[in-house]
């Protein structure tokens, strides 16, 4: 069973004629932890936007959890992302005016599927958020603090909790450790791996930092995958 299957993907931005992405085939198995690396400008962010269903490729198919998202409307892709994909940015993941608990629970506000998964286990989004935050090393007294009062490392762990709440099938992390120092980088990865395993989520981790590659099941070079002229 595969979490991601890409076939004959070609994508270019409206103003351009040369494709930014040209990927013949890419398969990521369910539950796999994949490291995707490439220099800046190799189309990492664009690929992630396509996988998350923000951008739609001009040709080819992208199947996430056996759903061909290129066949969905923009609205359906937004819903699909809310239900099945957890996304972690490089920085500034949180809404500065909400506290930690509500930043994490926010993911459930946009997805009834995530809420239902918690309901089946008889857990409220707030309780699950608190549990995840504790697991990720955000102690209880921090939970009601505003996101803007946290350190960058703490913010990234709260962001990971938000991506993981409600156990989405796929976690996409776009250079989430680039703002962290070496020590917190590794401890963040360990926590992220543990929680992905617990939730049974596939992890696609993007970074230009090749040192981290050894921590993953598999590593892919985007430069090798992407056959477009620019890559």
């Amino acid at each position, binding site marked *: 069973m595969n979490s991601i299957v890409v076939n004959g993907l070609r994508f270019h931005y409206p103003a351009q004629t040369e494709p930014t992405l040209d990927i013949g085939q890419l398969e990521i198995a369910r539950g796999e932890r994949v490291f995707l690396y490439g220099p800046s400008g190799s189309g990492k962010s664009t690929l992630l936007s396509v996988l998350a269903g923000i951008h739609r490729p001009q040709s080819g198919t992208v199947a996430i959890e056996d759903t061909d998202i290129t066949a969905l409307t923009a609205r359906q892709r937004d819903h699909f992302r*809310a239900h099945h994909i957890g996304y972690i940015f490089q920085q500034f993941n949180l809404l500065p005016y909400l506290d930690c608990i509500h930043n994490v629970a926010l*993911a459930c506000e946009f997805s009834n599927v995530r809420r239902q998964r918690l309901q089946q286990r008889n857990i409220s989004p707030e309780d699950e958020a608190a549990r995840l935050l504790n697991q990720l090393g955000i102690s209880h007294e921090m939970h009601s603090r505003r996101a803007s009062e946290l350190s960058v490392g703490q913010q990234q762990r709260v962001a990971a909790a938000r991506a993981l709440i409600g156990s989405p099938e796929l976690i996409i992390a776009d250079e989430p450790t680039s703002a962290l120092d070496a020590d917190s980088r590794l401890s963040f990865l360990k926590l992220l791996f543990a929680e992905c395993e617990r939730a049974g989520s596939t992890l696609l981790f993007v970074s230009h930092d090749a040192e981290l590659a050894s921590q993953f099941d598999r590593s892919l070079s985007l430069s090798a995958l992407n056959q477009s002229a620019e890559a």
Partner: protein
Amino acid sequence: MKLFKLAWASLLSRKANALLTVVAIAISVMLLLGVDRVSQQTRAGFANTISGTDLIVGARSGPVNLLLFSVFHIGYPSSNVSWDAYAHWREHEQVAWSIPIALGDSFRGHPVIATDHNFFDHFQYGQRQSVQFAEGHPFEHSAEAVLGARVAKEQGLRPSDEVVISHGTGSVSFHQHDEDPVQISGVLAPTGTPLDNAVFIPLVGLATMHGEHQAEEPQSPPSFSQQSVPQEDEEHEHEHEHEHEVALDSEQPIDSLSAFFVGLHSQPRAIFMQRMINTWGQEPLTALMPGATLQELWRTLNMFERVLAIVSGFVLLTGLIGMLATLLASLQERRREMAVLRSLGAGPGTIFSLLVSEAFVLTVTGIGVGVALLYAALYALAPWIEYSFGVVIHISWPSVVEWQRMAIVLVAGTVISCLPAWRAYRNSLADGLTIKL
């Protein structure tokens, strides 16, 4: 609902900007409603000054002038109506009642109205309310006077006190009828009209004060409208102490009048009567129907109302543009927020409605604060407006027009926010999941 909560939390994190926007909208709403409120109240106050009177008749002049001096005690009659003319029309078969009035004197700045018992019997204001006495009774002798409610309150006078009426209008008068003190017989109940500010004396009393009955040529009008002319003063300084107890039912208490109010048996006949009086050959007279002339007067004042409404419209526009500027300026710093929401599955439509609902919250709050400010101002200023202009401000719930204006502000605020919302929509499509710093 979750969206609304989110917009609210986001707004609270930008308190200072939000507060300024709310204040700008509140002030414009207050002005917009206040202008309308005050003009409505003034209009109602004007309309309430006189009721049940079908015609007001004076010497030939502009109807607005006649209305102003006879009802509002503003300005002077340019000439007088002879008693003979009054006697003629008083006896007309259509006329049910009539009230003669003679103006020109004052008491410590309050206008003095010389009239007769018909005034207390027939004059009506507001919704056909008759004049009531708070204390005492109408004058019964020539040396008695009735005070309006405010005069009594301000001057601290009660029935049986004695006062001296002065010549001419204005609070400072050089000539006082020192020799003619009058006794207060009664005080009127408050009416919220110019009556509150007036002093009422019998026609005979006025004539006595001016020594009219001793004048060489009693028939030559006008006899008292020129009191301010110095040469005339000598004529008035006659000795007439013995006349103080002149009976009020004199056949011709005075030679001429400023105007007279007429009530008809049949109100629809007023237009025919007006025409008849206006075209009367024996003396040039002007008859007016109070309702119609009040309308005419109001049209003149309407100009001010319109100018004020236009100004407050522009203030509102400024407030809304201020909100627009604040929203547009916040867009750049909120691009991250938008990208985060997009990553969580919020569609561009959600981003759009987030901004619109923020503007909605700002506008609703602004309107609420504006209405609160308006009521606070009305409560604070109502006594002053009543004192200065004789207009009673009734503090009531917002009218239909005011609700409509509030709705217009709300719609305008919401519509105007579509511009930044549209830009946020476009941004969120273009940015996707990249965070622009």
